[in-house]
């Protein structure tokens, strides 16, 4: 079977090359035949990649240890669902998943535009095919998952215990769906430049694709944070680890793009900037894959150090050079139609939003690669970690939070003093009130107070926008109460979807603030019957139990949990010893409520029979996950708005 898999990938490589050449030829000669043939080749690549993936998954689930990839990442005692997910446990399989998602996007794109006989869309497909050439090439010549061992081992090496978690079943595919999806906006951007495309229709199309990927990327990032929180067992969810940064950077630049593209739609400005942002978002996605998979930077994720690094760097260099050259070549096309009238205006706020988002991405990038940069510049390696990112990124993020409240209610072109007064007087007052209430409750320092102010400020601008909208529709709409909100959102899904996304972000800020400022920690060795007090909680050790699960031996501490003297039942933080890797795995116990998480870690059983327990109270962490859900919901609402697309279709854009 491995030969078939290998052959499928080689054929996919050939088909990708064919698609690029055929479409290029068709575009050059304006012949429909080569264009059609090239589009079909993209479908063929998708089919072949699916075949290759099915073959690899089949080998993984049937534990065919003659396959190197299977022997490296599975073992006999591995539960079935993790055999499937070991498809993305290693580099070769991850690349295959990348290609599968990439070619699926290509196919989905062709399907969505199947009725449009416009060579512009063929050019988009050509760019997608060109990127497929790279990935099929990598899988064929550099990093094949279909290698067969000279002698098959009796059992495989097993899957890294960290990856044996239900979250790991879905986190990477969702993250990749976001990452890889930026291919479509990128391909649109390049195609616009190649075809010298005017009009605005494509901008709305790109916006919608980007919104879709952006939602997946954001959700994937939060799922990664949740996985780290539960699985890594250090009490936190975000450590500014290079791989976390790698997923955050394209999200940040993509977010900048989603905002500035509105300025282009509305006012015909910032065109060069927008194309540059699309390109940058895509390059950062590729860079993210490179960081995760090349092991150039040390992180808990860099379990694969390999030979693909130079290929990725080469790809990034070549593709961004081509993009930059095209932008310069098509300068006339990207000429701005308007000029910025005032600083205090919608455009102005979008501009600053962009400066801040890109700065945030830049600071994150710089911090991530700082050892490399400092060695090149000064000759000595300097490394930065979490304190640097907190110092630099927190104030920028807070400035963005304030803009979230200000931007949407500023008018286009120029905001007058009366508009400012009407829109900001109450929110500013609410913000101040919240800060004043917050300070005696234990808020110390400028940033936490500013954050509380910002959260209340933004939340009240959003509430006011909804209230105003409902008020304005009172005469035309029958709906009352909660239904009036629904009917308002339905009327302008794009706008109110956006507000809901902002509301979700505000909720996330609340969660981050609560869990960083008010976190409590306590630890100690406990004997049976002894108590560990933390905040209002008391943990009483009842005993230690051993339990065997499928592929590991668990040691669990049994704790009676009580809060303010009231019993809340038992918790069982554990250490699992995986038979295969002989590596202990901390399995935390978590008691979640909307107000706070009680996070319990078993350090281990000591020689004298006592048990080391570490506990955290992480307030408001659940807000982070809920905020993510609200953001995804808002994005879906905004995505279902097809009004703008239809209008621009009518205009013949």
């Amino acid at each position, binding site marked *: 079977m491995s030969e078939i898999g290998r052959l499928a990938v080689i054929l996919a490589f050939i088909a990708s090359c064919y698609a690029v050449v055929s479409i290029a030829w068709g575009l050059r000669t304006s012949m429909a035949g080569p264009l059609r043939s090239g589009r079909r080749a993209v479908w063929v690549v998708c089919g072949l990649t699916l075949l290759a993936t099915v073959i690899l998954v089949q080998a993984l689930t049937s534990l065919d240890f003659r396959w*190197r990839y299977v*022997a*490296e990442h599975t073992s006999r005692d591995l539960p079935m669902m993790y055999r499937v997910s070991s498809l993305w446990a290693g580099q070769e399989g991850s690349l295959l998943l990348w290609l599968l998602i990439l070619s699926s996007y290509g196919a989905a794109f062709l399907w969505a535009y199947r009725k449009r006989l416009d060579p512009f869309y063929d050019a988009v497909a050509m760019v997608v095919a060109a990127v497929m050439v790279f990935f099929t090439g990598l899988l064929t010549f550099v990093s094949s998952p279909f*290698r*067969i*061992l*000279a*002698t098959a*081992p009796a059992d495989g*090496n097993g899957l*890294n*215990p*960290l990856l044996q978690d239900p979250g790991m079943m879905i986190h990477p595919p969702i993250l990749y769906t976001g990452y890889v999806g930026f291919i479509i906006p990128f391909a649109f951007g390049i195609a616009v430049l190649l075809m010298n495309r005017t009009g605005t229709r494509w901008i709305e199309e790109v916006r919608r694709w980007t919104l879709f990927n952006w939602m997946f990327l954001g959700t994937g990032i939060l799922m990664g944070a949740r996985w780290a929180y539960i699985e890594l067992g250090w009490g936190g969810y975000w450590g500014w680890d290079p791989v976390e940064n790698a997923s955050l950077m394209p999200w940040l630049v993509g977010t900048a793009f989603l905002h500035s593209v509105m300025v282009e739609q509305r006012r015909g400005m910032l065109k060069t900037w927008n194309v540059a942002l699309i390109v940058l978002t895509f390059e950062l996605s590729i860079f993210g894959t490179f960081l995760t998979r090349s092991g150039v930077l*040390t*992180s*808990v994720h*860099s*379990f*694969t*150090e390999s030979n693909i690094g130079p290929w990725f760097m080469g790809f990034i260099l070549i593709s961004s050079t081509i993009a930059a050259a095209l932008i310069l070549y098509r300068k006339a096309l990207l000429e701005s139609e308007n*000029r*910025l*009238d*005032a*600083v205090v205006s919608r455009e*102005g706020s979008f*501009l*600053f939003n962009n*400066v*801040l988002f890109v*700065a945030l991405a830049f*600071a994150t990038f*710089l911090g991530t690669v*700082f*050892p490399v940069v400092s060695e090149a510049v000064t000759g*000595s*390696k*300097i*490394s*930065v*970690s979490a*304190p*640097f990112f907190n*110092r*630099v990124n927190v104030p*920028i993020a807070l400035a963005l939070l304030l803009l979230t409240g200000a931007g949407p209610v500023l008018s286009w072109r120029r905001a007058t003093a009366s508009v400012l007064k009407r829109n900001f007087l109450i929110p500013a007052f609410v913000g101040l009130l919240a800060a004043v209430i917050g300070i005696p409750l234990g808020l110390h320092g400028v940033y936490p107070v500013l954050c509380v102010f910002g959260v209340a400020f933004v939340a009240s601008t959003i509430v006011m926008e909804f209230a105003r909208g409902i008020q304005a529709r009172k005469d035309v709409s029958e709906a009352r109460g909660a239904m009036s909100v629904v009917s308002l959102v339905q009327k302008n899904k794009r706008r109110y979807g956006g507000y809901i996304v902002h509301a979700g972000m505000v909720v996330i800020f609340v969660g981050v603030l609560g869990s960083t400022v008010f976190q409590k920690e306590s*630890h*100690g*060795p406990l004997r049976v019957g002894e108590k560990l007090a933390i905040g209002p909680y008391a943990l009483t050790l009842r005993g230690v139990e051993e339990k065997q699960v499928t592929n590991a031996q668990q040691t669990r501490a049994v704790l009676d949990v009580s809060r303010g003297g009231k019993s809340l039942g038992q918790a069982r933080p554990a250490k699992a010893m995986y038979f295969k*890797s002989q*590596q202990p*795995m*901390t399995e935390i116990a978590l008691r979640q409520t909307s107000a706070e998480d009680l996070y319990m*870690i078993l*350090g*281990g059983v*000591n020689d004298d029979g*006592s048990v*080391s327990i*570490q506990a955290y109270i992480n307030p408001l962490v659940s807000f982070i996950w809920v905020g993510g859900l609200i953001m995804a919901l808002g994005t879906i609402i905004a995505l279902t708005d097809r009004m703008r697309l239809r209008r621009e279709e009518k205009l013949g854009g």
Partner: protein
Amino acid sequence: MGSRLRIVLVSLVIVGAIAYLILTGVKQTGLHYMTVTELAQLTRPPAEGGFRLDGRVATGTVRYDQKLPRLSFQMTDGKENIGVVYDGLMPDAFGEGREVVVEGNYSHPARTLNATKLVTKCPSKYEASGLGKDKA
């Protein structure tokens, strides 16, 4: 003042503020990133700033007091050794011979690094070896 000029000025102020944050951030939180040998052979360590060190856990040197908790071990790159003390629970993948990254303050007289952060590189890489060659 023209609005264009004003926008440029405001943007410059923002960019300047961020540049300031980055520069002071590096100055105040930057860590000297070294190998064990480089650190061990320093005659005079830099006056300020913490260190980040890559290396392996030397065999037979791990002491772990789980009750405190405090973990101490010698870190090696094959030539030199540096002592590391870390006040915290032992990470899951930690063990003798494992590759680790530590960050913290260095005491030159004691040749000991007081780590505030300890990351163990996942061992799957060298576990994966031992499978032998591919079939021709």
